[in-house]
């Protein structure tokens, strides 16, 4: 049974198909509010779950899923809201308190200490002691017991009990993180993007474990953006959007398509005018490009075109952009700009060649937090305005204001810290600073991640304007829909190589999906 229509909001109570007659949900999080500085993460979010179910938490980037989880596990303190477990109000004022309430979590950024062994990590904060000393034998035994259910899933099928976490592969580390949570015998288990680094086989093992836990009465809160996993594993799902819950549905009564619709809400209206393709000259020719993550990427970029990077995430899209910007060492292959080979040894070299780069991680790689907006906007283009090393104040402000106007950046004063801006406006700063360098090729790595719809539209308009002036754009996005709406052609990457190029009438969702999954297109 579904509570709440497409745009409606459910009330806090609910009924379930597998109801045990409970009138109040086992876990009830109500009226959650959380704000980080100028950014609102949660705005009256509610969550209600039962024992013995796998409850999915869905939503687009920035919808607040992670924040809800962090509040539940005590890592973040809500500004307002209550949490009730089994009918009793609880206060979770830290991770230790969460553990006391038998809540365990598997975090997106793993909570493992790299330099400690797997066994030490599993026992961390709950080490068994004998006469004051930690009993190594007991620690080892517990680790083996915790890792055992996942024995088949580990690389080389051996339990890495005494190995340092730093030596393990990403998948193994993820499994250890999960085992660590389970070792605490929780009654509520939070899995936040726990399958991100796992192979298909490992995911199956995990799902078996989860199902067994559910049958034992454990509540599992499952966050993932892989919809097929949600449909396979979960009993119910709550969808978050913009910091509040918009619906709670039974898996049996919904479909992937409907989940997507609930998550996305408004339909994006932007449609790019396609340029006639044959005329344009080739501006950039990349042949057999190799780096530590690229295995020979080959493609061409035309003047004034938007070339998309598609395929499964993590197949080398970001790495390709970084290599072109001189931020990763090129081990082989050639890059030619207008026929001349380039030596992209550093970002400065790439900038001299006319590249601009908007990184995927805005906070860590895009902005200078704590510095004024003005400084952020003018940083890449300093040499254009400097006279003998000096920067005339008026020129700076004029240049910055040009960008602010063009991108409609909402700010108080140019001297305000860039951290005071909302996510969308910060991203405009990250993109906008390049406008002053008059680039020829703009490399965008997932530029719309975590920003609101309005800012997105403005970014797309900007891209159109740039290409109209002859600038070429390489566009990586985690949203296929976005790629199809914005790009003239799409490269499909797989394992660090370009395996397909979609253009013209092959620019459809079906074709892109097929190329991504490397299956034959179904002829309708």
């Amino acid at each position, binding site marked *: 049974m579904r509570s709440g229509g497409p745009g409606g909001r459910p009330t806090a109570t609910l009924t379930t198909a597998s109801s045990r007659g409970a009138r109040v949900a086992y876990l009830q999080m109500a009226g959650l509010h959380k704000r980080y500085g100028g950014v609102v993460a949660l705005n009256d979010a509610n969550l209600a779950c039962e024992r013995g179910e796998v409850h999915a938490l869905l939503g687009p980037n920035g919808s607040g899923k992670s924040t809800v989880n962090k509040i539940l596990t005590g890592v973040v303190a809500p500004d307002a809201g209550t949490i009730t477990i089994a009918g009793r109000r609880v206060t979770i004022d830290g991770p230790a308190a969460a553990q006391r309430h038998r809540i365990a979590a598997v975090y997106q950024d793993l*909570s493992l200490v*790299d330099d400690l062994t797997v066994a030490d990590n599993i026992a*961390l904060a709950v080490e068994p002691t004998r006469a004051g000393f930690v009993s190594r034998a007991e620690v080892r035994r517990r680790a083996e017991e915790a890792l055992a259910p996942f024995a088949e899933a580990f690389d080389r099928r051996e339990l890495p009990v005494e190995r340092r976490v730093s030596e393990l592969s990403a998948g193994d580390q993820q499994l250890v993180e999960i085992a660590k949570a389970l070792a605490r015998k929780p009654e509520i288990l939070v899995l936040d993007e726990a399958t991100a680094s796992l192979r298909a086989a490992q995911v199956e093992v995990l799902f078996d474990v989860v199902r067994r836990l559910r049958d034992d009465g454990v509540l599992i809160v499952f966050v993932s953006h892989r919809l097929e996993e949600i449909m396979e594993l979960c009993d119910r799902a709550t969808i978050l959007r913009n910091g509040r819950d918009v619906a709670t549905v039974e898996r049996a009564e919904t479909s992937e398509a409907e989940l997507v619709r609930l998550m996305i809400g408004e339909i994006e209206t932007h449609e790019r005018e396609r340029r006639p393709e044959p005329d344009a000259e080739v501006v950039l020719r990349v042949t057999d490009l190799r780096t*530590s993550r690229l295995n020979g990427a080959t493609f061409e970029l035309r003047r004034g075109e938007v070339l998309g990077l598609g395929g499964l995430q993590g197949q080398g899209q970001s790495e390709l952009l970084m290599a072109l910007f001189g931020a990763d060492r090129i081990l082989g292959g050639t890059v030619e700009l207008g026929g001349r080979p380039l030596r992209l040894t550093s970002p400065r070299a790439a900038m001299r060649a006319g590249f601009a780069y908007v990184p995927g991680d805005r906070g860590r790689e895009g902005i200078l937090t704590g510095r004024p907006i003005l400084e952020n906007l003018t940083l890449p283009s300093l040499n254009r305005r400097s006279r003998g090393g000096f920067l005339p104040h008026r020129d700076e402000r004029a240049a910055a204001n040009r960008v602010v106007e063009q991108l409609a950046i909402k700010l108080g004063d140019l001297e305000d810290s860039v951290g005071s801006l909302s996510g969308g406006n910060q991203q405009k700063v990250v993109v906008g600073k390049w406008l002053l360098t008059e680039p020829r090729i703009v490399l965008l790595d997932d530029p719309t991640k975590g920003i609101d719809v309005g800012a997105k539209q403005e970014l797309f308009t900007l891209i159109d304007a740039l290409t109209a002036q002859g600038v070429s754009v390489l566009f990586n996005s*985690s*949203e296929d829909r976005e790629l199809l709406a914005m790009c003239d052609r799409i490269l499909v990457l797989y394992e660090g190589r370009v395996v397909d190029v979609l253009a013209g009438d092959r620019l459809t969702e079906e074709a892109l999906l097929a190329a991504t999954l490397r299956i034959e297109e179904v002829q309708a």
Partner: protein
Amino acid sequence: MTTAGPARDDVAVDVRRRPQRAALVGQAMVFVLLVIAAAANAALQPTFFTAYNLSSMFATFAPSVAAAVAQTIVVLTGAIDLSLGALITLASVVAVVLVDGDPSKIPLAVAAALAVGLLGGLFNGLLVALVRLQPIVATFATTFVFGGLALTVLPQPGGSVPVEVTTAYRAATLGVPNALWLILLVALLWVALRRSRLGIHLYAVGGNTTAAFATGVRVTRVQVAAYLVAGLFAGVAALAILANTGSGDPYVGSVGGAAIIGGELTLSSIAALVIGGTALSGGRGGALGSIAGAIVLGLVANIVFFLGVSSGMRELIDGLIVIGALAFTGAPWLRRGRQ
């Protein structure tokens, strides 16, 4: 929102995130240096292996060893203690003033030194964990506080330690110099700490504070405890200095006269742990390496002395050793990764 496909079936796995070789080289190197330094000493000094000489040497090394262990404990959590030298000085002058040459007051003095160390450590710990000041600045400030207090307690070098203590300190039990027993005791205490819950938590907090916190480790308590234990070892170092020199000195181990009380003690404790393979960023290393490092520095000082070079050169050589040690372990050719 992503419409990512199903999990991949085959994965090109890049296993290592950090070269392990560098860490191993760091730890092993200090013992190599130890052997070299000892050999050089023995070569220069024919009387190196006599009981008298060994006794004197260990008697001089013991305070630095205790200081190195103290600093290591704090650094493991990712913090630092710039006030260590000043705290040691403070504890030593309090103890010497209390004992006043009277053997019956020894227990009191010992208790006082340890108590002062603990209180100083508590002060540091609260500033870092509760007031949340950066460790380097907080302990920078407390250096002045402890140093000033030391000068208040004992404005001029003086005071006297009962001769029973100084004699016993230089004597030997079961053929082993007593000072060496003290060093072994310190090492043993460290090993015990290492195997306790607190010991593991030190590494966890220093290795990845957020992960430790999210796992339920009481990070604040661990940070305070680290400074407390360090303070305890500082008290031990203070007692060792008194037993070695026989009198009190508020300027002991200062840098540039009274410019900063106990400065040199602090700096050499940092040098010792760096040579010994403990990472200044925390989470890696151990006090056994620091103990070896402290002894290496002491042996080098001996060499310099025997070469007839002025003591100023010792700072030069210490500086070169520290830089050299770090340059080797952190050197670019041991690293991989992007530019």
